[in-house]
């Protein structure tokens, strides 16, 4: 009796094991998976490394209002503002961020900065492979955070300036 009961118990347990063996996997096979993301998959609203967006003219959206820095609970955004001039126009408004750093040693990816931004300039991208052997590499500068220039403004080698001047091709910029 006792033996039978034991066998039944084992069989019941193993049945779970075998059942699960033939189900499709849920865990991502990162980093050994296929594709450029090596198996990683994102939810749309995943909060990764920030992207500083540009407007349709390729100008930076950030107007250096410091609201993200004020909202940030870990105080990791550092901005220096400067004034746009007719010769040197960086953003659409009077002011732009001459320096914009995010210190990923401290960022907790809470998204408060994104919510605070009045111009939708700072957004969360999907970048997540931040690990490094040197902490100073974790301070990202504006150049690292900025979205690429829209393709019709010359970021894509396929479209050079001459073609743009002859009428911008109907291409949607990546990320737009």
């Amino acid at each position, binding site marked *: 009796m006792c033996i039978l009961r034991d066998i039944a118990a084992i069989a019941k347990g193993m049945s779970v094991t075998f059942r699960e063996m033939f189900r499709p996997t849920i865990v991502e096979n990162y980093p050994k998976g296929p594709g450029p993301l090596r198996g990683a998959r994102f939810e749309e609203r995943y909060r990764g490394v920030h992207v500083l967006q540009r407007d349709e003219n390729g100008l930076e959206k950030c107007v250096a*209002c*410091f609201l993200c*820095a*004020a909202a940030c609970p870990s105080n990791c955004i550092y901005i220096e503002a*400067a*004034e746009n001039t007719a010769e040197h126009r960086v953003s659409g408004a009077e*002011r732009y961020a001459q320096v914009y750093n995010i210190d990923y040693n401290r960022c907790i990816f809470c998204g408060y900065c994104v919510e605070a931004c009045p111009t939708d300039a700072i957004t969360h991208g999907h970048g997540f492979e931040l690990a490094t052997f040197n902490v100073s590499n974790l301070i990202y500068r504006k150049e690292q955070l900025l979205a690429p220039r829209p393709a019709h403004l010359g970021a894509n080698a396929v479209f050079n300036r001459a073609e743009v001047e002859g009428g911008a091709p109907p291409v949607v910029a990546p990320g737009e």
Partner: protein
Amino acid sequence: MADVNITLDGKKLTAPAGTLLIEACKNAGIEVPSFCYYPGFSLQGACRMCLVKIEKVPKLQTACTTVIGEGMIVTTDSPEIHQARKSMVELLLGNHPLDCPVCDAGGECELQDMTFAYGAAESKYIDIKNHREEQQWSPVVYFDRPRCILCYRCVRVCGEGMDVWALGIQNRGVASVIAPNKEDHLECEECGMCIDICPVGALTSGAYRYKTRPWEMKHIDTTCTHCGDGCRTTLGVRRADTGIEIVRGDNRDKSGINGDFLCIKGRYAFDFVDNEQRIKQPLIRKDGRLTPSSWEEAFELIGRRFAEICGREGGRAIGVIGSSKTSNEENYLLQKFARVVLGTNNIDHHRTGDFPAFARALAGKLDATASMRDVFKAPAMLVIGNDPTNQHPLLAWQIRNNVRLHRSRLYVINSQPIKLRRQATAFAHIPAGSEAKLVALLAGDDSVLDVLVSENTPREALLSLRDRLRGEQNLVIIFGAELRGEEMARLVKVGSAVSGAKFVCLGDYANSRGAADMGLYPDLLPGYLPVTQGKTFREEWGGLPDAPGLTIPQMVDAAKAGQLKALYVVGANPVARFNIDPFAFAKSFVVMQDMFLTETALIADVVLPGANAYEKSGTFTNTCGDLQLLRKAGEVTGTKPDFEIIVRIAERMGFDVRKLVPFGGGMWADMGQSRGAQSGEADRHSVWLEAHGLETKLSPFDPMAILDEIQRLVPGYHVSRRTLLSGTDQHTRIGGPGILHNPELIVPANDDLFTSGTLGRYSRALNSVLENQRRKPVETEVAAD
């Protein structure tokens, strides 16, 4: 005035008759919002934000234009009032851009606050906004018209407060715009008062605009370093690669002696601080060239050479020149260093007012000096000489607004038609250089009348002026460097016949008075005590040289004769100021500490990079004798405060610094640790100690350690440390016997609104204004230097 009974929101109150309802509310702790009302200026009734309900009056009334009446029953908040105010904000926002993220006012904007308070954020107007491009009116004033809410504060402060009238209103009704009265630009004193008083971001400052945001800065109250008036200026600072950068100057908290006022220099001319010509490394002359070196090497050299010269020839062979822009503590320390460490009385500074004669004239009189606040309250004022509008902008503001708000009587006597004559009850235009004669006339000597009368000023005018002055009470008498020595003594004698008379002797630089009080004279110790006396100092310091030392011109002669072997210049530029022949000091060892390579650097063997008043703590005494605190705002890597440099040189000379700076004193106290975990105990303890000047001074570089000694030994400086540390100005009495000097030794600075001695040359803001003026054809005559 009789009191009136009113009921505010159910509270029964009394207030003096004639009080405005909005002020009565404020005093009762009830906030009534306002845009156009500003205390001290004419009433406008333009913005309708201050609407309140007065019982028995059918419509809502503006609290800012209503004078309280007996039995008035007022409600300041109700759904009706709330709705009315909300509508007002909505109307204002009708043509207001959505600019807050880039607007300089964002974060300290009254319109933003009101929009939040009344929840008027959504716009009900669909019409396209009437946009206008931003305009630049002057190097420091920009105007963004869509942001303007037409409160007219700027127009009133410029006209009524500054008596400049550079701003006006064009058009009527909705089409009204604020505009300069001169075509498209301002011809004004560039004080920036309009920018400061603007409740929104319509007027922005060229020096600060679009640089940062108010909450990103630290705000540090300190004292302006440009003229002798000592305005409180609040510096906004932030971290920078070079140390701590000053980005803005304004007067956020209006509790200083200057109230609402700051002139262009206090507001914008902090920018000499990060001028690229600033020296940031000690320089030593090697093979005729000033070569960068280390602090160590420089101190070593100076200590060795000074000790050598002192040992071989005695202190007589060294001269020291102090500054009128360094703090009281540094000045006191410098003269102590000269007298005790070097053993010489050869110490002097650039004198711009005859304070020793002033002390002598006032000896034995109590309460005979007026503070800057007194000038605003005096029932009558007499101004002899000087041009306060240009040389003492704050004093001029106090005088003008005293006349305007308190109907004070102003008597102006000057050899130039200075601007203050516009406020004067009587103006006597006298020939240049005849101020002394005028004093004689006031004293009753009619024989000088012939010299004084001119076509502008007839005999009768002068005589009636004298009669009116004799009939005054509590007169404040202000005089410039035109009156010195015996003439000043005579004026004080005549003036003292007026009951309650008080005096102000004008000196030009930020701490001219402090330098004089601290004894930067070859024949006077701190507190105007002749060196031949000074028993307390002898006991305290253990001996002093007895014979008076050399003045600056005498030092030059001694150097030419080869008797002055070394010269130590702290924060001064004597070569430019006194036109000294640079070769005079060819054989002397000259040490200089300053921010820039000035003319004096030509003769220097060692140049040490010093810090300015915005980069150190300490105290300044303004020309009236008001003692105020300096707080450290900025910092430039590589420089050191003059205080530290002096102490380090003394140390290198082998002197026991403990004898120079009594540090380490105070109370060694249990800072609350033994009281267990009662939080705040330790804090309260140290606050108390600090307020009583008992905190431990652990370093010889702590200026507060010397302040203890100053307060103990210098007459007139026993003021409350607690009040001083809280940032409030304190009036010091001018003390001591004083002395008569050769009046020739006084060289007025003759700065005007846009110059500030050597400092001004390194300020971008001041230079841009000067350059802008040069480009324009000069219409009005500028007062001669």
